[in-house]
């Protein structure tokens, strides 16, 4: 091969490459094979959701990402998953104590952050959802969230040129079914892994903590970590935090799911990863700051009968200990996750 030929071919290739970038439908970011490889972070347990019957592919993930950000899933096409699950807040809803749904309706609970969902054993504050794949159905069909009918959603997707192509790319043919839709969303949400906070790097000997932050870790382990268990910072159990129940919300918590009186006012122990980014706090978002949360636990004034014994250990935290714990909690902010381009809005240019 002559040098001339090589030059011509490589110039052509460059040109094709550039052109392909320009003609790409969503030029913001293209998902590749590496982006959809699920990596088990060092020190993490084996995940509950293993993608066994739902192997992530770039096209599947891209479809799931589009669905996550598309209001088409709501009845009047106004509200998307991302309307409440904001990327900047680890997919919680910043500054909104209760979730906001369709037609300006206000929900009953605080939007939970989305991260490390592959390790979840159940979902929602009350644990009513038993598998990550069927989780999207809950907000989609809830009358005060997206108020959709699954059949109607599928009809809308089938009428969309974009989705006919996207489903074909992801699954090989244009069949648009609930199973495919849900599995694509799960490829996207299941891939949300937060494991690169300063805490994680400290545990891997890649970063340092200040003395103050380290003191916080020690107090945290002593008084909080039984329920907020490392490294996921939740043990997936349901506990009552002792808050005065809000009679206007009339929310029985987990009792709604189990029908057992002992589960009244209990809620899933939330992960504390990225907790500095997800204010306000608690199941009903009643606390604006971490200080208020710790003041509640430290004061030890509990209003429900079925508080867990672990809760009593957090009583009598000193002011310094509270500050140390908060300093430590801030080391759980994972900027690599928060700024991960894979999870960005694909429609945003």
């Amino acid at each position, binding site marked *: 091969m002559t040098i001339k030929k090589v030059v011509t071919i490589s110039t052509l290739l460059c040109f094709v490459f550039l052109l392909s970038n320009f003609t790409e439908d969503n030029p913001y970011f293209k998902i590749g094979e590496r982006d959809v490889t699920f990596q088990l972070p060092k020190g993490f347990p084996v995940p509950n959701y293993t993608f066994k*019957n*739902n192997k992530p592919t770039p096209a599947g993930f891209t479809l799931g990402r589009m669905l996550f950000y598309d209001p088409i899933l709501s009845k009047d096409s106004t509200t998307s998953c991302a309307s409440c699950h904001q990327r900047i807040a680890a997919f919680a809803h910043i500054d909104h104590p209760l979730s906001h749904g369709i037609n300006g309706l206000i929900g009953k609970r605080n939007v939970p952050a989305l991260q490390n969902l592959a390790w979840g054993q159940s979902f929602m504050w009350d644990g*009513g*959802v*038993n*598998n*990550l*794949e*069927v989780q999207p*159905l*809950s907000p*989609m*069909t*809830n009358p005060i969230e997206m108020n959709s009918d*699954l*059949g109607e959603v*599928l009809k809308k997707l089938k009428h969309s040129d974009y989705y006919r192509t996207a489903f074909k790319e992801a699954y090989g043919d244009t069949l648009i*079914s*609930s*199973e495919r*839709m*849900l*599995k694509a969303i*799960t490829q996207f949400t299941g891939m949300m892994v937060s494991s690169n906070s300063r805490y994680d790097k400290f545990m891997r000997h890649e970063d340092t903590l200040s003395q103050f932050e380290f003191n916080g870790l020690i107090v945290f382990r002593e008084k909080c970590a039984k329920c907020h268990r490392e490294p996921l910072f939740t043990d997936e159990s349901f506990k009552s935090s002792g808050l005065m129940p809000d009679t206007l919300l009339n929310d029985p918590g987990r009792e*709604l*799911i189990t*029908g057992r009186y002992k589960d009244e006012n209990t809620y899933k122990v939330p992960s504390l990863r990225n907790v500095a980014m997800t204010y306000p706090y608690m199941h009903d978002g009643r606390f604006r700051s971490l200080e208020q949360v710790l003041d509640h636990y430290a004061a030890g004034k509990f209003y429900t009968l079925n508080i867990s014994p672990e809760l009593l250990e957090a009583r009598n935290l000193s002011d310094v200990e509270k500050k140390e714990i908060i300093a430590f909690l801030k080391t759980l902010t994972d900027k690599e996750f928060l700024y991960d381009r894979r999870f960005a809005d694909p429609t945003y240019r």
Partner: protein
Amino acid sequence: MRQKLNIVQKTIMIFCIATASVVAMSFSPVGERRNIKLHIWNNVGGKEIIYDNATYKNSTGQDYTITNLKYYISNITLTDTSGKVFTNKDSYYLIRQDDPATMDIELADIPMGNYKSISFLIGVDSLHNCSGAQSGALDPVNAMFWTWNTGYIFFKLEGKSPVSTSPGGIFEYHIGGYKAPANCIRKVTLDLNGDTDQPNMVNVPTGKLPDGKQLKISSINLSADIAKIMDGKTVIDIAKLSSVTDFRNAPAIADNYQHMFSLSNLNYDY
């Protein structure tokens, strides 16, 4: 070293294989498999179900009409006299009163045997309540899936009654739940020898015709009597209980629907 077969060897081989196949085919009723149709007839005490316009009466004299009837049956098995069980693989069926095609279930590839009973679940086994996004009968688009407390609604019976206190005079029984204490999966076992309608039938399927040919079951016809849901171990008072849409009261209704099936008759061919 590989040697090529010559034409004579090839011919002999083909002949041998062909002969063996013919012999095997003619001597192998043991290996024979067939399909059996399972037909379900939904009725109320022997009366046809007609949405909206037919009025039925429960044992306490309360009138009601039916507007919607759907339910799952799954995990169908046949047991022969020696205790051997044939399992119909991946068998999840949504019976819908508004779709007659759903009332005929094809049980495929059943080995020959003297089957004495059929069993199935009303509902969906716990594993498939937790298996994520599924298709076919288990597609949540069938509106038989609870999204707030995930799992399948096994049984939906809706209608109207003048005694109902719900808005619009409706009653709705949505029964599901795969976990204790509100597990509503119910196993039904029906005896296939109980059928006496059929002439020439000594036993199933060993009955022989005069010319010595063997009778074989071609379809199993079941009756699903919806009246049993209203009047079983628990007698449902529509005036007091017009809505069951979660675990409360559901097991009592499940105990009733467990006994709604009976064998109508068997059809045979030979």
